[in-house]
């Protein structure tokens, strides 16, 4: 035993002489964020789930920013001034901005970024797919022409991260797809350091950033991939993590009200369970039948499942969204008599239908269960099938299922038409029940061209009414997001037009 | 006396009942003699043999006394008994193939007897193992030493067993049915070897067997055990030539009749030996005894001197007839 220890000690001694390595000491300037997943890519042109945005939003900057408390109010970022003149928008760019690799930011970067984004056509490109061309006027001025006049371009650009044209040119063979998948060079508040697959992405603070950090910002950020929700909760509570996203609601409420924590509440896009009904497959292809389901649905049960922290929607555009017509819409509530009448009219008593639910989302599953028991009161049988996401959406698209549960998302802070394009217009990928209405198509196309806000509001209400009256969707409830934040840190705010995410540059230690 | 056994009894508890397997036997073994314990299976002969070395099953209860070289063996702590097994008492068994560890070379198993008792270093013990193999007349002992048990013949294995039992130089060898599994020629060789080793090493041998043929060749004194009781004990010549106990006589007869020393030889006696817990009252042999009378069924025969032997029988074969007469 003694001999063995001696040998081990000797070996260690020899090794220590040869290698200099020391584990980084724990300090208050490191921020650990427990993210629910690992990015598939950190390419801003492809990022489309929130754990990818965690990285892209913090490394890159956008031309404009917006006020989280009033998303219709835009703020300067890489662009300091902008104006619209019909189809042409002109942006004046900020001086003295450099990328993390030291190269200067100018108009060429904007053009290269947008050209590349539209060519790839993935991720957030839908927000700016009405761009026709980008022109460099001078290094500090860029002109963007749209296919039709749109008032929302600047607002939508508040989601589009700016890359360096040098990087794009260097890797132009595949549009830089391979390189940008796992490398990043932005102008933003944090720099990309490393990506340990399966474990974490490390960022460090960019002290040359043009923006302003709070006092005592975090110098180092570790974006940890923690798959299990209970683990994120427990790690947050136990102090391993400084912040976590997608903490299960009951855990979040418990942790947020325990000592050493406070709750941050806000609106956000994540997981509003909306039930899509298949317009092409019996019995949901019958409008009266759909109306019966919408009226029978027990909205209260849904709100209660969110522990009261939810509201019942009245249409496709949530009430807090700039220009939302929701306040003028009729309240949607459970009306069993109305439901029975509608069902009688449809002549589909005792009908049977199938509902596909993407697995892994308890709220979605619960919404389907509520539908099942509500429909049962009408004598309608709902069979629930929980499947992996792609399988579930394929089932309704190929008419093997009558319904599908999903949240509707729109990353634009003020362009409501984006709620429609993916979900209610022809060819929209999440238009899983294949809704089609020509009037709606025309309205949505026309909306961005109207500069008068009141007039736009009127059209938006018309568009919303078309969807509401078709009974295509059951908007079950829109939960508020609650995030427990430790008292030792501050600065966390919820982006209403985003999935749950963190702006690391606003966070600080107390 | 190298060994003296007094009122030794051993039994087991089964389903709340005490089943006595060996019921108060006494005998002495003198230094240098070959003492044979003979009996059918279930007679308690092996239990007695094992108990001498302190190897009775841990679940058994024992009483009486077994003194080996003036040491009480019963109820002695196992740690102390272990010191005697090997250097003082050697044991060999029937079925040498199963009795040898199948995954160890034969030589190493022999050497272990020495190293485990700290009698030799590992290298020295190996050398002694080869010497022991030579001593038990194994040709090419080096090869056999490095062979595994399954690689050598049955006779060789038993010789190796003997070499292992004697490696540490014991004065008493307990041989439990050592020749049972062997064929006739090998058996004879083995008995001859034992006799030679006994002379060379001045051993005392306790031979446990059911085979009268073995007895005839080597025994100095004989103890006949029936159903946990002594039937007869005395000098080999006296017992072999003039068996007084009807059981012994029957054993002798069946040994004469059966040409092969196979297992049935004792079954030649009418009926079977009683099992544990089914011992009859009175003389335990009476249900099978041709001379049994009414007293045999109720009164247990006391042990008494009868010529040069001691026996327990109400109606012994008094007129000691020559063997030839008994046969006809």
């Amino acid at each position, binding site marked *: 035993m003694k001999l063995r220890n001696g040998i081990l000690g000797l070996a260690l001694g020899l090794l220590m002489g040869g290698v200099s390595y020391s584990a980084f000491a724990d300090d208050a300037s490191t921020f650990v964020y427990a993210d629910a997943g690992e990015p*598939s890519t950190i390419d801003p042109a492809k990022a489309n789930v929130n754990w990818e945005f965690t990285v892209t939003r913090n490394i890159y900057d956008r031309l404009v920013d917006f006020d989280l408390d009033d998303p219709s109010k835009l703020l300067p970022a890489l662009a300091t001034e902008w104006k619209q003149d019909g189809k042409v928008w002109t942006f004046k760019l900020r001086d003295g901005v450099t990328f993390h690799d030291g190269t200067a930011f100018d108009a060429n970067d904007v053009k290269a970024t947008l050209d590349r984004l539209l060519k790839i056509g993935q991720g957030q490109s839908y927000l700016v797919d009405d761009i026709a061309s980008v022109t460099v006027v001078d290094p500090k001025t860029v002109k963007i022409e749209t296919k039709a006049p749109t008032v929302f371009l600047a607002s939508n650009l508040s989601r589009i991260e700016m890359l360096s044209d040098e990087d794009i040119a260097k890797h132009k063979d595949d549009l830089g797809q391979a390189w940008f998948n*796992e490398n990043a060079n932005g102008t933003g508040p944090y720099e990309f350091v490393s990506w340990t697959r*399966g474990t974490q992405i490390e960022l460090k603070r960019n002290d040359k950033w043009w923006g302003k950090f709070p006092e005592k910002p975090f110098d180092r950020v570790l974006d940890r991939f*923690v798959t299990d929700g209970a683990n994120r909760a427990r790690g947050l509570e136990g102090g391993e993590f400084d912040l976590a996203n997608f903490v299960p609601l009951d855990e979040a409420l418990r942790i947020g009200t325990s000592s050493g924590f406070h709750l941050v509440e806000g609106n956000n896009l994540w997981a509003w369970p909306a039930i899509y009904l298949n317009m092409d497959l019996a019995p949901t292809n019958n409008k009266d039948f759909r109306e019966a389901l919408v009226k029978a649905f027990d909205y209260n049960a849904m709100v209660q499942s969110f522990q009261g922290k939810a509201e019942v929607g009245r249409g496709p555009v949530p009430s807090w969204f700039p220009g939302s017509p929701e306040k003028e819409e009729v309240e949607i509530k459970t009306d069993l008599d109305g439901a029975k009448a509608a069902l009688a009219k449809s002549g589909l008593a005792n009908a049977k239908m199938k509902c596909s639910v993407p697995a*892994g989302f308890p709220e979605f599953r619960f919404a389907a269960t509520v539908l099942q028991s509500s429909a049962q009161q009408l004598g309608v049988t709902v069979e629930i099938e929980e499947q992996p996401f792609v399988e579930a959406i394929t089932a309704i698209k190929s008419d093997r299922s009558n319904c599908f549960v999903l949240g509707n998302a729109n990353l634009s802070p003020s362009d409501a038409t984006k709620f429609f394009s993916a979900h209610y217009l022809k060819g929209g990928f999440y238009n899983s029940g294949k809704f089609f209405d020509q009037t709606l198509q025309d309205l949505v196309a026309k909306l961005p061209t109207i500069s008068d806000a009141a007039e736009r509001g009127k059209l938006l209400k018309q568009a919303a009414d078309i969807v509401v009256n078709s009974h295509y969707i059951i908007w079950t409830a829109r939960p508020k997001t609650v995030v427990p934040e430790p008292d030792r840190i501050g600065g966390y705010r919820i982006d209403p037009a985003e999935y749950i995410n963190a702006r690391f540059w606003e966070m600080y230690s107390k | 006396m190298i060994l003296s056994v007094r009122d030794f009894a051993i039994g087991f508890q089964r389903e709340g009942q005490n089943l006595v397997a060996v019921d108060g036997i006494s005998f002495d073994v003198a230094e240098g003699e070959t003492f044979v314990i003979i009996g059918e299976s279930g007679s308690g002969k092996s239990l007695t043999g094992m108990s001498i070395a302190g190897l009775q099953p841990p679940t058994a209860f024992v009483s009486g006394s077994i003194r080996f070289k003036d040491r009480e063996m019963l109820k002695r702590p196992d740690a102390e008994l272990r010191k005697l097994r090997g250097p003082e008492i050697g044991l060999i068994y029937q079925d040498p193939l199963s009795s040898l*560890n199948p995954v160890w070379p034969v030589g190493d198993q022999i050497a272990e007897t020495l190293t485990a008792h700290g009698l030799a270093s590992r290298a020295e013990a190996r050398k002694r193992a080869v010497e022991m193999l030579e001593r038990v007349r194994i040709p090419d002992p080096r090869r056999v030493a490095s062979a595994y048990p399954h690689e050598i013949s049955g006779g060789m294995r038993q010789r190796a067993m003997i070499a292992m039992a004697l490696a540490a130089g014991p004065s008493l060898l307990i041989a439990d049915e050592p020749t049972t599994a062997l064929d006739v020629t090998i058996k004879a060789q083995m008995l001859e070897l034992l006799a030679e080793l006994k002379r060379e090493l001045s051993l005392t041998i306790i031979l446990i067997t059911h085979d009268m043929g073995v007895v005839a060749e080597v025994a100095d004194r004989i103890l006949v055990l029936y159903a946990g009781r002594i039937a007869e004990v005395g000098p080999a010549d006296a017992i072999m030539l003039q068996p007084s106990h009807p059981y012994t006589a029957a054993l002798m007869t069946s040994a004469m009749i059966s040409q092969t020393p196979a297992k049935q030889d004792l079954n030649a006696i009418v009926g079977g030996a009683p099992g544990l817990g089914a011992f009859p009252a009175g003389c335990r042999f009476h249900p099978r005894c041709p001379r049994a009378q009414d007293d045999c069924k109720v009164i247990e025969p006391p042990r008494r001197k009868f010529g040069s032997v001691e026996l327990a029988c109400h109606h012994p074969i008094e007129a000691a007839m020559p063997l030839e007469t008994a046969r006809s």
Partner: protein
Amino acid sequence: MVIAFLLKRLVWGLVVLIAVAVITFFLSRVVPADPAAFLAGQNASEETVQRIRVEHGLDRPLPEQFASYMIGLAKGDLGESIRTRRSVSTDLKQYLPATLELLIVSFVLYLAVSFSLAVLAARRPGGAVDGAIRLVTMVGTGIPVFWLGMTLQFFFFYKLHWLPLGARFPIRETAPPVVSGFLLVDSLLAGSLSAFLASLKHLTLPAATIVVNLLAVGTRLSRAALIQEQSRLYVRTARGKGLSPNRILFKHILRNALSPILTATTMQFGYMISWVILVEVIFDWPGIGLYAYQSFQVFDYSPVIALAIVSTAGFVIINLVMDLLYPVIDPRVQSVGS
């Protein structure tokens, strides 16, 4: 002889692997799912999705996809992961060491613990100790893995603060440079005993979860093997030589009990491979189990098939090694080939 045997087993192993590849390929495609939709993301247009399908060959007829997959496989190409956007072999190289480290540590711990318990239990079969061990191990096995893992986390991380919640290395510290991918080894290579101990601490709960879960079967099998060997005649011989019970146990019984125990534990290793997925998810262990779990969720075909092939290969190799080991353990097994 041995070479002929090896050749035969390798060919057989190859046949099994090809069968697994074929079966998993078709099983994975039977499910009507569209990984391209995942790649394209929310709000992507149908054209974009179709373009991605074409890029990844997902639009081609199934037999054609199958043929090109098998041709790639023959060249050692395990395909591309849609989720990580890297080649599956690159991913495996990254994730495999973490899993192997966990498996090896668990397996060694499992052998040691189950064998020690078996020795204690076999000393007096049916006794109080035997009964207690049986009860405790049965309870350990009866608890579902995820619940066991979370309970351990709850006590050792949340309540007692003794052990970390998950992962392989303390979050706020820098792991040693990757040489072997085994953190225990890499820590020592980097000359850091503290890093070594930290890695060990992170290994404790995941390994304990696996071990506790398999313990009942392992202990029972080892105990049975020991009890059977205890009644063998060579044990009587050993006692007759005056050997101590410990010497008899370790020098005689163990060697003989080894082959039945190894046979049983080989099967257990198979179970371990399947438990590892759950355990890695619970403990955020960045190994192939977590990789498999994440790939399953988005119908990332290539990693799923590759993992089936790799774990089958692992099982084939272990069985082969065991077959080669038997004659070493037990000289009576002359040649595995005959």
